[in-house]
Structures are given as C-alpha cells and as structure tokens.
C-alpha cells in the first residue's frame, strides 16, 4: 500500500470514530457478533492459511487460535454491558456532597501490530478487546505470515464494519508509515527490537503503548518422586515446547532447570514422550521462513553447543523442518542461552540444588513466564515471592492463556482505568475478601470492577448473601453428592472460622457445583463459598 493510502486509512478511521457510532453498545455488540460469525463460518479458511504459513496442524490451529478466539469473543459478548457500566466510588468527607464515578470510555483509534507465530489469534484477540471498548481499529498483521494476512484482509471487511475496522497489509515500510500517524493506543506483539522502535515513534504523539514481547521462559523441574507426576509434567513440558507451533511461541518453555542427579530421569522421560507424541512428524509445525531457520541452525552450529546435543538435531533446509532437539548443559555464555530460542531446541541446565534456580532466573532479564513443576510448598512460595516474571504457572504450561479471560495476560496494567487499557477489561474478579469478616462473597461483576478499582467494598447491600463452608477431607464422590444436598444442612450455619485457602463458586448448575467441589478437594482447598441463591434452589 502506498503512503497516501496509509495516511488515508488513518484519517478515514478517525473520521469514522469521531462520528461516535463505535461508542454505542449496539455497535460493539454487532461487531463482536460479526466476528463470532467469522470464526464459525471461515474456520476452514483459517486452517488453510495457517497450514500454508506455518504448516500448523488443524488441531493445533483450533486449540491455540480459533478455539481461544471463540471463547474470548463469547466472554466479551457476555460481559460487554457490565464492563460498560460506570461504577460509583466512595468520596471523602471533604468533598461532600459529591459522587464519584468511574466511566469507561474508548481511547479512540487503535493500531494493532500482530506477530507471525499465531498470526490469526494474536491479531483478533486484541481486536476483540478494542471493539469491546468501543474503539476504531487499524490492524496490521505480520507480513511473514502472508496467507493469514491475506485471509484477514479479505474476511475482516466482509464481516465487520469496514469503515471503522481496517486491515492494512505490508512489511516494515508500511509499519513505519503507520507509526508516523497519530493513534490513541498502539498494541504491539513481537520482538523487543521492534518494540523499541514502536515506543519511540509513539512518544512523538504521546501515544500509550502496550507491548507483548517474549523472553527466555524457564521451566523449573523439581525432583518429582512419583512416576505418574513425572510423566504428566514431562508431557506438559513437551506440550509447551514442541506442540504449539514447534516452539515458535512467546510463552513456550525456553529451557529447563533441573537438579544434576535428576537430569537423566528427566531426559529419559522426555525422549519417551517425544517418541509417543511424534511417531511421525506431520503433527509438527515447520519453521516460519529461511531466515529463522538459519538463525536456529546457527544456534546449534557452534561446536561447543553441538557437542551437548543428546537428542535430535537433524535439520532439513528444504522443508524448513527441525527435529525436536534436546541439549544438556550447553555453555551458559553461548548464544542459545542468551537469546530467546523461539524454535524446537530445548536446553536442559543442571543445578546442584533446585533452589539455585531462583538465583539463576534472577540473574537474567525478567521472562514472560516462569513454569515450575513442584510439589514442595516451600519452594513454591519462594518462587512466587522471589522471582519476577510476566506470569507464573505451577505444574502446567501454556494454559494460562486458556484462562485468559480471568487472569491478566502479561500486563499493561499501569493504565488502571479498565477500558483505557484493552486487556485489563478482561480481569474478572469475583471475590471480595472482607478482612474483618473472614468470609468471601460472590458478587456481580459490576460491583467487582468497582472493587478492583477502589478496593473498597462499600456496596454491601448489593452482594448476595451466602455462607462459607469448610469442606472436610472426603472422597470426591461423597463431596459431590454432598454438594447437592448441602442446602438443607447449611441454611442456618454460622460463618466458619478463617481459612487461608478459599475456593469460590459462582455457578448455578448443581453438576458444575459438584465438579467444583471435586476440584476444591483435588486442589486441596478446604473452603467453599455457596451463595444463598444456589442453596435455596
């Protein structure tokens, strides 16, 4: 697209935004609905595009991109109205009589840059947030995934309001031209090098920026004693290294930290799992392009690194395919241990004691995610308190994005006003902890948002009444049965004494309730909250 085009697009979208139509609930809803239709109707098109760009298997494409998008869009549709409602905040006596209110308002015209590894997911995910917040949007998908980029350019205008949501295709030159325009927010996913350019360009117009980058995300692997746990843990690591897009994912496991004596056990398990998962390699994505293939093969070319390969290592430059590769203790000053790998190579670093992993991680730049597999409560709390990362997941990998709706993914949180930040709006919080009362309440979303923003649970009358029930150690089945009969027994019971772990229930379905109780027991939480409206039914 020519420069005139880019400028024209920006102006067109701004004029459209200024007409005010994107602010209405009806517009937002219709656009989200349209996007939902797109996701259902164009599923095949997306699968084909992803197959072409990355050799991504259909199942993978659904799990990591399409499925998650459907979930997000449904979640946004469900909560849109609540998110848009202004919330009251308490005012100090000095200002009496006044009332304070937080009114979410759209930022304006938003520019989204997405990356090539999840070319559709990472384009449409921020788009959903931006639409829900009532913004007009220009989306520039990555030129390195041309098929997906073409798909978006073709289908987005077909379903969505083509005046206020535009897709611009092109390479760095187009990106540069886009950055010269004035935006009200730039949402960037990609590498830290480009992020610096984006942020510097944004400074010119004082545009707030959300950057989603990567980093070397470590997995801490404690010496798990049970063979079953080991198997599950290793499957989950493989699930985060090779399964999604052959390691070309920002939240993939970059390297594993393990105790010296435990390393052989881990390696055997890894090899066995790889064999089980990949009897043939058609389930593995290929490397995106020549350049990245070259970069990855250079990482293992160095003789001191190549010598540490203990599994895999074969490359096929024809098909841009790299076999799952494991390295044991590559030199720490080698490039592979200093750059984000972003490919199917997995270094294993051995430590004297697993506790040393905290030091190891702290000595390096903050990663996007830390994964830890451990059953040791003490190690767990040390990792939570002493390391710093975008997010932290215990005993699993990757799935934090699946619960994205409820957890903040990475964090542009510093813009606290919910709608001002595209992502923060998705933080759903359903618990208010009253320190004086030691019980937890389930509250409507609106109250919660207010609570998140003010941390003041004034609106007590708006909370549904309920009780807090200790769940004794009992069998799952028994607990589940109990849950359904619970109402009768609990109606008059007093609030229980304080407990540290709390499980919240906000559902009305008895079956789900039973499942949740089971979960509570599995997770070793000993408390449940039941709102009266469930109990009384």
């Amino acid at each position, binding site marked *: 697209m020519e420069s005139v085009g880019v400028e024209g697009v920006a102006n067109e979208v701004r004029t459209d935004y200024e007409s005010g139509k994107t602010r209405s609930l009806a517009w937002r809803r219709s656009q989200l609905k349209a996007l939902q239709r797109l996701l259902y109707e164009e599923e095949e098109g997306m699968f084909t595009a992803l197959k072409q760009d990355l050799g991504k298997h259909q199942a993978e494409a659904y799990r990591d991109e399409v499925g998650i998008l459907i*979930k997000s869009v449904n979640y946004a549709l469900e909560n849109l109205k609540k998110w848009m409602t202004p919330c009251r905040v308490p005012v100090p006596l000095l200002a009496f009589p006044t009332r304070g209110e937080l009114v979410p308002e759209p930022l304006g015209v938003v520019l989204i840059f997405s990356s090539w590894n999840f070319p559709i997911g990472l384009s449409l995910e921020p788009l959903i947030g931006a639409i829900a917040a009532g913004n007009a949007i220009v989306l520039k998908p990555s030129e390195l995934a041309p098929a997906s980029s073409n798909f978006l350019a073709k289908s987005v205008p077909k379903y969505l309001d083509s005046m206020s949501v535009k897709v611009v295709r092109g390479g760095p030159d187009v990106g540069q031209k886009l950055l010269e325009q004035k935006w009200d927010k730039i949402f960037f996913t990609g590498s830290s090098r480009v992020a610096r350019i984006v942020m510097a360009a944004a400074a010119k117009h004082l545009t707030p920026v959300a950057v989603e980058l990567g980093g070397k995300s470590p997995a801490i692997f404690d010496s798990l004693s049970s063979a079953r746990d080991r198997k599950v843990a290793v499957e989950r690591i493989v699930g985060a290294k090779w399964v999604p897009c052959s390691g070309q994912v920002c939240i993939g496991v970059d390297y594993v930290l393990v105790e010296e004596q435990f390393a052989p056990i881990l390696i055997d398990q890894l090899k066995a799992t790889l064999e089980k998962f990949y009897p043939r390699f058609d389930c593995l994505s290929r490397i995106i392009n020549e350049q990245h293939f070259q970069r990855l093969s250079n990482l293992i070319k160095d003789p001191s690194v190549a010598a540490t390969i203990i599994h895999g290592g074969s490359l096929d430059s024809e098909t841009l395919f790299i076999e799952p590769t494991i390295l044991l203790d590559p030199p720490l000053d080698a490039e592979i241990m200093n750059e984000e790998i972003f490919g199917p190579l997995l270094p294993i670093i051995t430590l004297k004691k697993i506790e040393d992993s905290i030091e190891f991680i702290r000595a390096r730049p903050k990663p996007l995610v830390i994964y830890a597999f451990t059953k040791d409560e003490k190690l767990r709390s040390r990792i939570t308190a002493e390391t710093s990362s975008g997010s932290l997941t215990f005993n699993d990998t990757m799935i934090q994005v699946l619960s994205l709706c409820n957890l903040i993914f990475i964090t542009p949180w510093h813009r606290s006003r919910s709608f001002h930040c595209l992502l923060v709006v998705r933080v759903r919080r359903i618990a208010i902890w009253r*320190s004086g009362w030691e019980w937890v309440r389930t509250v409507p979303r609106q109250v919660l948002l207010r609570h998140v923003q003010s941390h003041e649970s004034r609106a007590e009358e708006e909370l549904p009444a309920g009780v807090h029930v200790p769940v004794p150690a009992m069998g799952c089945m028994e607990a589940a049965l109990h849950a359904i009969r619970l109402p009768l027994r609990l109606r008059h019971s007093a609030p229980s004494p304080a407990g540290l772990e709390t499980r919240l229930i906000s559902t009305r379905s008895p079956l789900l309730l039973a499942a949740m109780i089971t979960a509570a027991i599995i997770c070793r939480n000993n408390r449940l909250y039941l709102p009266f409206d469930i109990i009384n039914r």
Partner: protein
Amino acid sequence: MENPAEEEAVGVGFDGARAAVLVAGLRRGFASGRTRSYEWRAAQLKGIVRMIDDKEAEIMAALHDDLAKPHMESYLHEISLAKAACTFALKEMKRWMKPEKVPTSITTFPSSAEIVSEPVGVVLVISAWNYPFLLSIDPVIGAIAAGNAVALKPSEVAPATSSLFATILPKYTDNSCVKVVEGSIPETTALLEQKWDKIFYTGNGKVGRIVMTAAAKHLTPVALELGGKCPVLVDSNVNVKVATKRIAVGKWGCNNGQACVAPDYILTTKSFAPTLVDAMKKTLEKFYGKDPLESPDLSRIVNAKHFRRLTSLLDDEKVSGTIVYGGQQDEKHLKIAPTLLLDVPHDSLIMKEEIFGPLLPIITFNEVEDCLDFINSKAKPLAAYLFTKDKRLEERFVKTVSAGGMLINDTALHLANPHLPFGGVGESGIGAYHGKFSFDSFSHKKAVLSRGFGGEAPARYPPYTPQKQKILRGLINGSIIALLLAILGWPRG
C-alpha cells in the same frame, strides 16, 4: 551510607557515570529484597508521615520561597493531601499487597489462579514545580507502597523545595533505597540514560515526549502526568454565585492558576456571559480585594521566564483588547492579577497553549451544543468541568467529552479522592495514580496459575486424531461432557 562514592553521586557535577553508580546502588538495594517486605514499606511511609509532621513549617517556608504560596494553600493542597495519601496507603497497603484470587475456566480444570502484585523494581520520579512538594512525594509514596527502590528528581524551578527534599527525605527514609537527585536538564538527561523499571514524570508534553523517547530505549514503561487546557462549561441555569466561587478557587486559589487541573478557559452561552462576568468580578473582589497584587492570598508567578510567557500572551492587541477585568502586572514581584478576557479570538496563542497562570478567557457561543463541539475539537484535557442543573446535559457531557477526569458543578476537587484515578488521556498524559492506582502504577500484576498433576487431558497432545479434536473443541467451549471425558483420560494413547 557505607560507600563514599555513592554519597558523592548525589550532588554537584552529577553526570552519566554518577547516575550509573546511583542506579547500581538502588538496584543492589532492591535486589537485597528488603523493599519487598511489608515492614519495610510501612516503616518508610511512617517515616514520611513523621517527616511531614516534624517539618511542616520548613515545607511551608520553602513553598513560600518558591511560589509565595499562601500557607493556607500549602497546607490544603500539598501538606494535607500528601499526608492523607500516606496514611491511606498505610491503612490499605496490606490489602493491596494480598494476592488476588480469580476464578479459573473449566478448560484448565482443576486449577487455581491468582494475581500477585510485585514491585516493578527501581523507579525514577521526576516532578514538577507548581506543587513541588505534593507532586514529588505522592508518586514516591506510591512507589514505596508497591515495594520499589526509588530515585526522586524534584524540579529545579522550585529550588527551595528541591533542596529541602535533598536534606530531609534521606533522614526519614531508608537512604539506600530512596534517593533524591537535585539538578536541571543535564542531571535529568544523565538519569534518563539509565535503565529504570518505571519512569513517573509530571510536567509538560514537550518534556513528556523526551522522557518517553528515552524510555523506549530500554522499553521502560512510563507514566506521564501532563496538563492541557481544562475547559469549564457553564450552563445558564446554574446558581451563579456558587459557580463563580468554585471556579475562582479552582483557578486563582490553586497556585494562581499554575496548576494542571486549574480551569483554563470558560465556555458559556452569549446570553449568559454578562451575568457570569458580573458575578465573577464580584467574587474576585471579595476574595482578593480592590488591589489583588497586594493580596497575600495569591501566589506569584514562579519565575521571570514564566512571567514573560504570560505577559506575552497578552501582547497581541486582539487579545489585550478583550480584557474585562484585572490585567495588572508587577514585574518586580512577579505578580499578575486575576484577569478575565471575554471572547478572545479562537486562533490566538492564549487559546492554543496551556495558560498555566491567572488569565481566564471566556468564550461564548449561541448554543451549549457548540461548546461541546469546541471542547472536542481540541486535544484531550486533563480535566473537564461542567456547571449545570440539567441532568440531560450532564449525561451528554460525560458521554461525549473525553478527558482525564471530570467534575460536575465544582473544580479541582476530584484529585482529592483517593478512590478515583488521577491521570490524563491523549495529550494530557499516560497512566494514572492516587490511592490504589498509585500502588498499581508501580506494581507488576503477575498472573499465577497453579495446577496439580491430576486432570490430565491427553487430547492436548499429539499425535492428533479426529477424536482428540472433538474433545478439545468441547473443552474449549466449556462442555461438561468433554471435561469428564478428558478427566477420565479419554481418548487413550
């Protein structure tokens, strides 16, 4: 301080090398982990409260030196607010620090999820001269409450307050993790070259851009608290006596207009303008007497440069011809009287730049509707004020006007509410603070998801089969049947 080199770093001849030493010192302090504990944070905040109590007289004297700020104003707008922020943080901090449980989705069942607030690390606070005490200490309070090591650079344009900070803050706080750097542009540049984990800047858009560009080099997040032309829309149905009093106190009672939330111009209807001007004149006479230049209740202009800037706004004949009240200047004492201008040309400099002084243009339109369009045609302000009794107009104002904050039927008061975020949007800034929002501004919200080893769903893993895809679809869509099948470990293999 054990290290003499560090001691020297804070003072004259501060350059890049010394800035690096300073940051390294702060980083060591932060890495030791002590700033993370509740006890450390509380001790520092208590120290600040003590400092404010002990040194109240000195602070007032410094503010009077810098701006001839009346003591009443110093207490009301700076000291009391700073102390309130501190005690509010002390009261609420434990709750803020607590990890926040969030529900998990059925897809990841069984699991538990929480959001853990952790300090971002080493932060830099650069503050402004108009409220030199509050605007310095308020972000520092937030940074400490969130458990960060912090360097404060007070504005050199308010030298008395700046040097007061350099002497007293280290006495009341842990001086290995809370440092004050005095200086002007070269010192600030040296500081900005360093790698910080967050930069909090209060000031103007021009420097804001420089700060953000410098931050981009290290991908440091920034919070920018800037200003903007804050409009006041006065409807014709208001109680004009109350309205003018509130506007006057927000304009001239806030540091003689040198406040980022002070009303910058008034919009009203042509028919109502004479009534408003009359009432405004009466109010001003009541507040500041016949000769406002002699009034002890009016701050002076901060320095000669700003004095010249303000008088040059009136240079244009088309502008000075519109003065309907005031206009007196006293260059020796840097005082300018409250000045009202009626219907200045829209393209004059005074309507383009943030005034930041005691001049108040009144712009009139035939319809209230046009006023709204006028506001929206300008850059987004930090605050927008509306005086009206008409609920419908209020609703429309809130809906159509974009601004950092909004206050109906009063001015400037909204920043005293710790439950409301204070910050700008667009040209008026990035990020917000006050109360919990300060804490959040200086915290990283870490997502922590925890699972057991149960609930393993083979459907996640290759080799992919059609059955697996079906289960996965069910799982992602939250189907209970799929969940049960997945829990049972189906399909095998």
